[in-house]
């Protein structure tokens, strides 16, 4: 069997025995800076806007609903099952499909509607990143197939950066099959290094920070 | 002062650019040093080392140790040869503890010329004067292995009449690379022409470096292109009055 062959080659080359434990790895290196909530919001905004994304800050869930309604205009949308979006009353917006739990139906809707609305488990202030863990509440394709993505989350989920994320979630696999970090709109520069947005994923991204 | 220093002029300066060695001696003497020239010196072995002939390089390295072991300080007008001695001799003797110990003892006393001036002689102004617009070319080994960046610039800043320009892109190889220059002649030539373009963009009329081999490559390409830009070793600049 190739497994045994490969492992045997590895061990022979390294001078190790089967089942031999590894010495302790270098200590984990996570440095979490002290950053005030306001400074996090400012950084999130600046970083995402530098990537042609948008950040709107609103003070209440009701204001979030109004903001999303305005951004949507007359576009159609699909919204995820995240409880926070229900709290904001977003699932009752006109033109918005909600409560989808069937894979085929989800795919069909995501392929045809204009906007995907999700929440986010976290956001990373120092890179302008959204962090989404896949779950019954949060499907993968909503932030991926429609040409535009809107994420609505409370300011309290805004972390400083990667170090804080991996400190809060030392093993993302424990809770989900998929954790995706989204930093700005989909882009490519494969032809002549000219930047084009929205090549496979959404070309527009808007983050609504609440609170 | 009056400290004695040994000059390792390198085979290239000995055979091709003796004026670089003479200039270095003049600068050192001007600072009150008594430079000597151990006659048995030849080469550091780098040509063989970089071409993948370790045994041959080792033999030459042993000869170098024999010649310079008793020197108080060794000054070298080449970043590349200095790096060979201070960085690569140890690799050559990785399974030869006796010679490795000799290298460990000697290497800290081996100095690239500009570093010697700024760190041992502790001077920046050597009283030189040269009316020119000059670009400084960083030799790769001086820059990356010896981390020499500021020392020559500080020395050049004190040369009266000399206006210093930086090359863009900074720190890019001239394409010499020892036997690389003749094994991949066309590629090496293209790299040299890239360097020539950078020199022309800088508007300099003189190119200065710490490495005779870079100067040979760059001057060779300048000359082939029929350009009037000249090349000088830092020692030649600092010896100008």
């Amino acid at each position, binding site marked *: 069997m190739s497994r045994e062959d490969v492992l045997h080659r590895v061990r022979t080359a390294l001078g190790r025995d089967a089942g031999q434990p590894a010495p302790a790895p270098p200590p984990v290196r996570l440095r979490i800076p002290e950053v005030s909530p306001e400074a996090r919001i400012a950084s999130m905004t600046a970083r995402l806007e530098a990537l042609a994304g948008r950040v709107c800050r609103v003070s209440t869930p009701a204001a979030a609903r109004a903001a999303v309604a305005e951004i949507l205009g007359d576009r159609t949308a699909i919204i995820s099952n995240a409880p926070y979006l229900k709290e904001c009353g977003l699932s009752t917006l006109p033109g918005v499909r909600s409560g989808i739990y069937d894979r085929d139906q989800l795919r069909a809707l995501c392929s045809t509607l204009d906007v995907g609305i999700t929440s986010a488990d976290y956001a990373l202030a120092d890179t302008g990143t959204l962090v989404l863990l896949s779950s019954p509440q949060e499907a993968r394709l909503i932030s991926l197939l429609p040409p535009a993505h809107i994420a609505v989350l409370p300011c309290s989920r805004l972390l400083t950066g990667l170090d804080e994320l991996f400190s809060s979630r030392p093993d993302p696999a424990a809770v989900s*099959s998929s954790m995706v970090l989204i930093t700005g709109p989909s882009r490519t520069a494969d032809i002549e290094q000219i930047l084009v947005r929205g090549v496979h994923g959404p070309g527009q991204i808007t983050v609504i920070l609440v609170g | 002062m009056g400290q004695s220093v040994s000059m390792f002029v390198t085979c290239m300066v000995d055979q091709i650019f003796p004026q670089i060695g003479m200039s270095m001696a003049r600068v050192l003497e001007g600072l009150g040093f008594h430079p000597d020239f151990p006659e048995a010196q030849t080469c550091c072995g780098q040509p063989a080392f970089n071409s993948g002939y370790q045994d041959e390089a080792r033999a030459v390295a042993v000869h170098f140790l024999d010649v310079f072991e008793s020197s108080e300080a060794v000054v070298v007008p080449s970043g590349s040869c200095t790096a060979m001695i201070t960085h690569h001799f140890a690799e050559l003797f990785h399974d030869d503890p006796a010679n490795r110990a000799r290298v460990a003892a000697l290497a800290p006393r081996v100095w690239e010329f500009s570093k010697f001036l700024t760190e041992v002689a502790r001077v920046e102004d050597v009283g030189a004067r040269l009316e020119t617009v000059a670009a400084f070319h960083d030799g790769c080994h001086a820059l990356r292995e010896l981390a020499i960046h500021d020392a020559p610039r500080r020395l050049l800043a004190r040369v009266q009449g000399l206006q210093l320009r930086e090359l863009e892109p900074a720190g890019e190889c001239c394409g010499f690379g020892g036997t690389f220059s003749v094994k991949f002649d066309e590629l090496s030539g293209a790299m040299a022409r890239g360097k020539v373009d950078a020199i022309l963009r800088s508007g300099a009329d003189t190119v200065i470096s710490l490495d005779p081999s870079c100067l040979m490559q760059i001057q060779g390409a300048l000359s082939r292109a029929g350009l009037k830009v000249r090349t000088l070793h830092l020692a030649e600049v600092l010896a100008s009055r």
Partner: protein
Amino acid sequence: MSRAFQQQIHNTLADARLQEAIYTATGRLKDSRRAVIADSVLPDYQELRTQANLLKQHAIDNLDYYLEQFQGSVEAHGGRVTWCKDGTEVADFVLSLAKQRGARLIVKSKSMTTEEIDLNERLEHHGLESVETDLGEYILQLAHERPYHIVAPALHKTRYDVANILTERLHAPHDTIIENQTALARSVLRQKFLAADIGITGANFLVADSGAIVLVENEGNARLTTSAPKIHIAVAGIEKVIPRAQDLAVFLKLLARSATGQLLSVYTSFLSGPRRPGEIDGPDEFHVVLLDNGRTRLLPNRERRQSLYCIRCGACLNTCPVYRKIGGHSFPWVYSGPIGAIITPQFMGPAHEPGLPFASSLCGACAEVCPVKIDIPKILLDLRSEVHKTEAQAGKNRLEKFVFRAFAWLMRHPRAYEIAGRLAALSSSSGDGGWIRRVPALLNVGPLRAWLSQRDLPPPPARSFRQLWRRR
């Protein structure tokens, strides 16, 4: 050195359009990288490099341990791990899985590892359709070319080239507007994603403690490849394993910065197993293929083992003065640039292209930018020695060996060295003291001829330094 290698170099140097394209693209990537590692934006950059180096060293030194741990973690999440010695075994695995599931269409996201084993060709040979979905890779697949650059695969193609390719292969109207070309690719590939049975990706990292694979990309095609089809297969080299998910905080900060000058790539996917109960979408099957394909040959030697630390950021290519002149296709295998120059001879054997380790001025720019601190020049030197040893055994290149032996002898005999030097000077004296443009035909051979083909030669001085010194 092979004729083909020399010819490729010559052709690339002679192509002014290509020279401009390579130089501009790599220059832009190089500048972008420099801006995001600057002290003012990432003060602990050097510490991160050191940590990345230590982590890679630790993972590779204990590779069997972490691979077994990884397998256990993947299986705990319902994924499956398959070990393969080479490309044939990978293709066999994919083909048999496709047959069992009745799969016909495969979407692929960019992966150097699958390029290495020509996976697309192998699958298509057996009647499967395997479509590259990264924009650059898609264009190259249509053009039947291999990637020009680890990170920017179609770096050598202009919008006019792309227009021709799309017209010829997709019968699309000729259009040289890059946005339109991208939109066309998006719509063609979107249909492929939605119809595909299997998605194949590589992996930037295999996380041993989580049993996750990590994919880093900008377009979203890797996300689609891993989310739309019912089966996901990740093909990864065994060297990609890292101990802990938390170590990603180090690697992710370095990877995008070094590759494209971004703080993070647009999408970083951390994927472990098939979709869990209740999750609405995601694949039903999750397979990881662990590929050797020559990697274990690099392990015995401590120094060379470093070659396996590579995280494929491409920074060494962008900064390399050789890559910036000869481009990606001059290199004899899929990996180009400095990292290609050390990986290729070790994976394929030194005889694959004996000239390759010598195609470097050893300037060290690659080692300076490498985020995991691989000492590429040192490995190149080691490979040069190995080529000489192989040649000596085969009785080849005896003249060069003799020349260096003579050199070493001469350098240990100062008198003989001095006489030889004077004789050489006399024989090449030009007379007027100017730089030498040409020499008599009799002398115009070997290295002298090679030098003079490009540059002038310094005139020999009337006296050597030691002669001048004696006269003082």
